[in-house]
């Protein structure tokens, strides 16, 4: 697969440099690390919000750095968790004494590295709390296994935890609202074409010209099943259906909707999916409060999309609506 890159082993470092040179007044890199923070970090008297994970999911996570959202993103190699010391640097960089909150996607590597970094930081006297996002209903939810993966719903957790922190929430309050968000958010994705890690060069999986995979993960992890490619309406209904089965909503519940492109799927197709999702939700009697259509949590150039539903209450609505300066999740 063709790429517009220089050295495949340097893509993350070069991307970070390009991010900083694009936003020199908003972002800075913690020297010698793969940590990007707000220019003004640590922000006095505010809980610092840190997220991150493997690279290749852009705009996640650095695109969500900004007032009202993340204070720092810790970037790993492509599709590889950042290591303990990098996460620790991220925590240190945004700690103003009020504590640091970690938003972790539920992958073994991410969980282990973030948790250990948190313990290290606590051993150094910092206050750290965390939440593990596991919104992907394609994976069985069982306490005996690795459990659900964290995918696009993570962006809602960034937004809501970020708003709570910006509004002066304590570490405990931020953790509480983040946990509520995780409890209320569900996603599922599908792919029609694969992606390739730059250092590997080759596509991570193959799909035949008439095939799609339902429930695929954002690193190409196996989904629920391979099927003949369906219409946008059928895909929208399959994803929405699986999510709703899991959510057990009540009539008149209010929702935020995110239609997320995985990389190479044009916006046009995301809007076509959105139209059917909205229709179906309306028919079922739910009320859509706010909708986000675009690329939020990608998988390099994978073709496909995911649908995320977040059940809202008054508090979540207020926090979702609170201003955010993050370039890829502006709210004013």
């Amino acid at each position: 697969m063709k790429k517009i890159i220089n050295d495949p082993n340097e893509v993350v470092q070069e991307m970070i440099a390009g991010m900083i040179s694009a936003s020199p007044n908003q972002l800075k890199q913690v020297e010698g690390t793969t940590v990007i923070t707000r220019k003004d970090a640590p922000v006095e008297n505010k809980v610092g919000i840190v997220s991150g994970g493997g690279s290749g999911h852009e705009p996640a996570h650095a695109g969500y750095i900004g007032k009202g959202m993340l204070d720092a993103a810790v970037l790993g190699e492509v599709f590889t968790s950042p290591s303990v010391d990098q996460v620790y640097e991220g925590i240190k960089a945004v700690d103003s004494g009020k504590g640091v909150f970690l938003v972790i996607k539920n992958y073994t590597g991410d969980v282990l590295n973030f948790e250990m970094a948190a313990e290290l930081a606590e051993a150094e006297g910092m206050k750290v709390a965390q939440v593990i996002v596991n919104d992907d209903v394609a994976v069985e939810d069982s306490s005996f296994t690795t459990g659900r993966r964290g995918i696009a719903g993570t962006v809602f957790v960034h937004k809501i935890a970020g708003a709570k922190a910006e509004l002066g929430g304590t570490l405990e309050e931020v953790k509480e609202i983040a946990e509520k968000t995780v409890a209320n958010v569900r996603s599922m994705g599908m792919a029609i074409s694969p992606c390739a890690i730059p250092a590997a060069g080759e596509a991570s999986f193959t799909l035949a010209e008439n095939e799609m995979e339902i429930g695929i993960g954002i690193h190409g992890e196996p989904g629920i099943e391979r099927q003949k490619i369906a219409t946008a309406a059928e895909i929208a209904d399959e994803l929405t259906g699986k999510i709703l089965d899991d959510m057990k909503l009540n009539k008149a519940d209010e929702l935020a909707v995110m239609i997320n492109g995985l990389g190479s799927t044009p916006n046009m197709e995301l809007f076509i999916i959105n139209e059917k999702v909205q229709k179906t939700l309306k028919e079922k009697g739910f009320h859509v409060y706010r909708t986000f259509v675009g690329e939020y949590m990608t998988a390099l150039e994978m073709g496909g999309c995911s649908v995320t539903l977040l059940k809202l209450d008054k508090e979540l609505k207020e926090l979702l609506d609170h201003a955010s300066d993050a370039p890829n999740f502006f709210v004013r």
Partner: protein
Amino acid sequence: MSFTVEKAIKWLEKINEKIQENKQYLTKLDQPIGDGDHGINMARGFQEVVTIVNEKEYDTVSDVMKATAMTVMSKVGGASGPLYGTAFLKMSLAFKEKEVIDDATFIHGLEEALNGIKQRGRAIHGEKTLVDVWEPVVNKLKQENNFQADLILNTAKAAMEKTKETMATKGRAAYFKENSIGHIDPGSASSFYLFEALAEVLEEEK
């Protein structure tokens, strides 16, 4: 046996040799049921470990283990980095302030490492992870109360091979559910090299 700084470094060097030799193989094991980076991760990390432990003078085995832990954690990455890092950190703690590391102390160190891995990974035996090799080896050593090369080698090898039969419920391989059966767990294979290296260090002593 008395486990010295010299032996500890020899052990790490031997681990690294085996990992480098089998880098492709480990990565190949990680392809069908993971993301195909285990060999790359381990090779990157242990190469650095060997550099680090040869760069400085160490007074105690505990210090060597700590330096290893830190390097593994920052350089291996993925799931295996923090797990192996934890293992070496727990050994470092177990050996702290011990002037002589005799068989019992070393076995205790390995047991602490195993417990660390299990706790960190929230894994138990039979989930197709590193634990499936570490637990049988530690149990055998405790049971026989005998620190012997053959015992370690054979137990580790059999345990690694047995992971082929189990279905993964932890780590990336768990997403493959039933399809994870029929493949050796890559982390168990790298753990086997670790114990094979240990057995060779013990052999040389004779």
